[in-house]
């Protein structure tokens, strides 16, 4: 009985043209000769289309050109600062507790100069080799002290030590601004957001173009 149920489901899809049914090859197909020319026609169509529409290729020349990333993109972390230049972080350990990759290391210190915030991180290190960029630390932070809005994602380096980001790196402009194309402070963030909303149209246009090019090469499988 249960088998019948399954056959009914397959019956439903029987007339669906998108299902590639396993059918015996016709004589001409088994001959292979004509099929070769059909295949050659498909590839030359792609070749000619791409040859004459080279700029429409979906490839982005990566290190030279970078894709505009949305403002909500979770990039490399940064530690935000108060107007007086001290870190907003109060070393409450909520981020390192929330971290599923266990990559945040904090050593707490106390202000001795009567600062009302009492605690601050002596050391705040994120092991970028372990970080999974899930953003749970940002959500856990009660002080808005850690953010992932820098838009940096190319964090390659030559040594493991350099990829353990210290407090200095996390509060500073690193890698330098001109190389990174991300946001670091509030103004940059706003600028990036404005760029992104402008870029949205461009992205839409690119997507439309892609769709169009797909439509142009219709017959390929």
């Amino acid at each position, binding site marked *: 009985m249960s088998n019948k149920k399954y056959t009914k489901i397959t019956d439903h899809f029987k007339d669906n043209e998108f299902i590639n049914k396993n059918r015996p090859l016709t004589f001409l197909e088994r001959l292979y*000769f004509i099929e*070769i020319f059909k*295949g050659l026609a498909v*590839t*030359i169509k*792609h*070749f000619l289309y791409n040859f004459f529409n080279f700029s429409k*290729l979906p490839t982005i020349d990566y290190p030279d050109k970078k894709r505009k990333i949305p403002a909500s993109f979770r990039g490399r972390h940064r530690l935000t600062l108060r107007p007086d230049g001290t870190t907003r972080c109060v070393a409450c350990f909520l981020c390192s507790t929330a971290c599923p990759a266990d990559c945040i290391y904090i050593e707490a210190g106390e202000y001795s100069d009567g600062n009302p915030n009492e605690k601050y991180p002596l050391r705040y290190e994120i092991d970028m080799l372990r970080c999974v960029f899930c953003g749970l630390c940002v959500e856990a932070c009660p002080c808005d002290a850690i953010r992932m809005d820098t838009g940096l994602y190319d964090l390659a380096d030559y040594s493991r030590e350099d990829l353990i980001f210290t407090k200095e790196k996390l509060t500073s402009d690193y890698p330098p601004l001109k190389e990174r194309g991300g946001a670091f402070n509030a103004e940059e963030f706003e600028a990036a957001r404005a760029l992104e909303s402008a870029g949205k149209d461009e992205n839409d246009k690119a997507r439309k173009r892609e769709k169009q090019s797909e439509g142009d090469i219709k017959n390929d499988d």
Partner: protein
Amino acid sequence: MSFYLETYISTYVFKTLYLPIMIKIVLAVAFPLVVLSAIPIVVWMERRGAGLIQDRMGPNRSNIAGYTFFGLLHPINDAIKMIMKETLTPERAKVLFYFLAPALVVIPAIMTFAVIPVAAPVEIEGVVIPFQVATIDTGLLYVLAISSLGIYGIMMAGWASGNKFSMLGGLRAASQMLSYEMVLGISLVTLFMIYAEIEPAAIVESQGELIFGFIPKWGIFLSPVAFFIFITAAFAECNRTPFDLPEADSEIVAGYHLEYGGMKFAMFMMAEYLSIITMSAVVTTMFFGGYQLPFLPSAKLHALAGPFISPFIQIAAFSVKTLFFIWLYIWARWTLPRFRYDQVMKLCYLKLFPIALANIFITAAIILLIS
């Protein structure tokens, strides 16, 4: 001094004995150089072509001061990299044969080009300049003989590497190339019968004529069956897709050149592209009228353009035709999937071989009926 030189140059002995030899030497140096320098361009065609066929850009990063020259610098980069690489010899390799094999693959691949005419011979002030390194009576048999010598290099490479994958690759290459060699030869017999010649230059000359007054007397129009059999066998001869079983990555890693690195590996690649160029040149010569422009045989062209310009026109025609067949090799590589090994052998012995034989008999019967 110059007076003596001038008189000597105008002597009969110089014109008929020494000058032809000097011309041949120049040709013998120029031909391999041109063919070798065509390799980077073919490699470039393959990479960029593959990219565009697969909706990619293809290599375009290599540059000199920011100018990439459409990616043409990548083969140069490759060559520099290959030359600078360390020479590694596998522990189990049989050293002499291991080092000899790449040379034995490259040399026959270059040698084959010797009998291909790239333009009709021209006569300037009583001196005949042939655009063919060797005009020998054996003609195309020489091409078949020399190109089959390349198998030795490949077998040697596969065996001497001391690697099982290499061994398998070498075996596959050997059996495949030997089998298709036969089909290659037999499909050409049809054309030998039609033109009653086996010397390439003579065959190309007769391809300048017309059949029924409007079709060029090219091999493809006279014997299309032979053309398709020949081109299939030529693909198998060059170990190219869909017959690249000896280098089937998914099964035997890289086949016979698995253990080779640096310039030795580059020589195998060079040999592959050289044999593509040579086979394309042979196809052009035999089936597509060689250097002949359609409807403009070389005698007419000489009368029109004179002996100085017409060779260049014919070389251009020959190059364009050859480039098309090189492109066909590349085009087919990114179109057709690889055959299974038993399919390759069945295609050869059970399909192409009988068809080629039948083609001979039918053509012979037609020739008999017409004459």
